[in-house]
């Protein structure tokens, strides 16, 4: 279990992590989501003692990461695939890390096999593609057979085959009861693997809940209504608790009242309905809604495109 309590990290004027209190529950896959620059990597680096927090604490199984006798047994970390010397072979890199804990060479051979690096294990790591470097990083994270894995954007820059491989690995590690804390800036990535999500924006926690709950918390489900009597339906339904919008004549999007009632009302008045569809928000749209206000680097292209259209 990884916990943070009031974790804050400032770099000069910038607050990268802002009073973050989270718990990564054991035995589950927790997705750590947020736009680039939200503070995900900084939080993960603090968890394993690479960065010192400005204030607050992070603990791994009840004590600081550096307080453990065998840190590599507690947590396996993949922060970036390039945390190695290019001139050293993959095997030598892993042996050097294993040696610090007295982990035998047989385990080094195992993680090399597990990550499919046998054929390149004795080549210089500098000649590796990003995909292979990522595999080597995962091999290093698995050396101590840790109960918890921290993976920072493990599929970033990988080809589809690499992405599929990482997903499968994460699922099988989770199936063994390991705790997995995995960051991504893509919700689509998480929706397939995570049980629980923590959403971060500008260093602040925006959401911390099971993925299903996050979906349900979407700002109300809506219903799409297509009818030649759209105008009448709208005037009938509209009230302070019901919101009706129309994008084109004959089409309504109704929020605050469910499809069943809309259908019943229409039948009572004898109005014909061509469509009556409940719209559930996708995780992606929930995520975008959550982080909209906290995106650090807003894209200017949409605004300039609009200007171009009106000019």
């Amino acid at each position: 279990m990884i916990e943070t309590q009031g974790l804050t990290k400032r770099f000069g004027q910038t607050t990268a992590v802002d009073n973050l209190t989270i718990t990564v529950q054991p035995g589950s896959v927790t997705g750590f989501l947020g736009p680039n620059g939200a503070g995900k990597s900084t939080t993960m680096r603090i968890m394993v003692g690479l960065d010192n927090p400005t204030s607050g604490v992070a603990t791994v199984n009840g004590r600081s990461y550096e307080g453990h006798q065998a840190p590599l047994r507690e947590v396996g970390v993949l922060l970036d695939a390039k945390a190695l010397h290019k001139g050293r072979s993959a095997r030598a890199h892993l042996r050097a890390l294993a040696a610090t804990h007295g982990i035998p060479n047989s385990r080094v051979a195992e993680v090399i096999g597990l990550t499919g690096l046998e054929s390149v294990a004795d080549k210089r790591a500098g000649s590796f593609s990003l995909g292979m470097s990522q595999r080597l990083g995962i091999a290093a994270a698995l050396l101590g057979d840790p109960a918890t894995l921290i993976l920072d954007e493990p599929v970033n820059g990988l080809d589809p085959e690499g992405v599929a491989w990482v997903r499968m690995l994460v699922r099988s590690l989770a199936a063994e009861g390991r705790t997995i804390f995995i960051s991504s800036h893509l919700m689509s990535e998480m929706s397939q693997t995570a049980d629980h999500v923590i959403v971060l924006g500008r260093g602040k926690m925006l959401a911390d809940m099971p993925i299903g709950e996050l979906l349900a918390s979407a700002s109300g489900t809506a219903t799409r209504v297509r009818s030649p009597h759209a105008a009448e339906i709208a005037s009938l339904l509209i009230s302070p608790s019901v919101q009706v919008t129309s994008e084109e004549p004959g089409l309504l999007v109704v929020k605050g009242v469910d499809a069943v009632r809309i259908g019943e009302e229409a039948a009572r008045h004898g109005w014909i309905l061509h469509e009556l569809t409940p719209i559930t928000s996708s995780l992606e749209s929930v995520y975008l809604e959550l982080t909209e206000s906290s995106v650090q680097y807003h894209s200017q292209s949409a605004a300039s495109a609009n200007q171009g259209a009106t000019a």
Partner: protein
Amino acid sequence: MSVTIVPIPTAATSVHLSFFRVLRSEQIKFFTLRSTWWTLGAMTLACIGVGTLMPLFLASGKSLDASQTGELKGVIIANLIAMATTQLGLLFMVALAVLVITNEYSSGMIRSTLVAVPRRLPVLATKTVLISLVSFLVTMVIVVISAFLTLAVLNSDGLDANFNDPAAWRMLLSAPLFVTGLALIGLGIGFMVRSTAAGITAAFALIYVVPIVLQLFTALGGSELLLALLPSEAGAQLSAINPAGLGGYWGSLAILFGWAAASLIGGGFLLKKRDA
């Protein structure tokens, strides 16, 4: 495609950090880089080459003559070899000592290292042990080989020198001590500045540039004390026939390794304090 995780076969309790295990890790890191072997190889060849040539030139120039005893000739030869080995050897060893930590920062390896050893200071302590051993042993082997090679060549020419005077061995020993002291200063600087270029520049500035500045200062009437306190000046006293400087031989040794300790303490403080 299926993935299975095989747990560590050994008992879980045997897997933990220890000083000797971190030292073993540093040893693996050091000797699995080709640049280490190139540097040590080049150092050995260059030092033995120049170390044996210098006394040979001197013998042909009649600085060593028949009126001197065999013991004195041995001391003079040992002194020349020690000075030549030090001046040349320090170029390689100081650079290697700076690189042993700065290459971890430039490559990103440091993050893997510190995740495995999050207390950090054992990394500095074991690198210190490793660099001390490598620097001392390699330089010692170089001076001993140079010494006996020179002796064999000169004596086959009828010079009749020997190393029976303990002073000859004090001379030879000065080279590994001097080189090791400077290498450790370089290691501490590497931990402090973290960049290879800045580390090598700072280390060689301390060894070559600062003495020149202080010599000027002394020539203009300034105190000689500052000059005598420099590691390069103190180290040079180790191979002097009559060690002068502050506190003679032992004082000079203390100044040299005092610098090494200060540099490593500074490096350790920053290593512990800064984000990696």
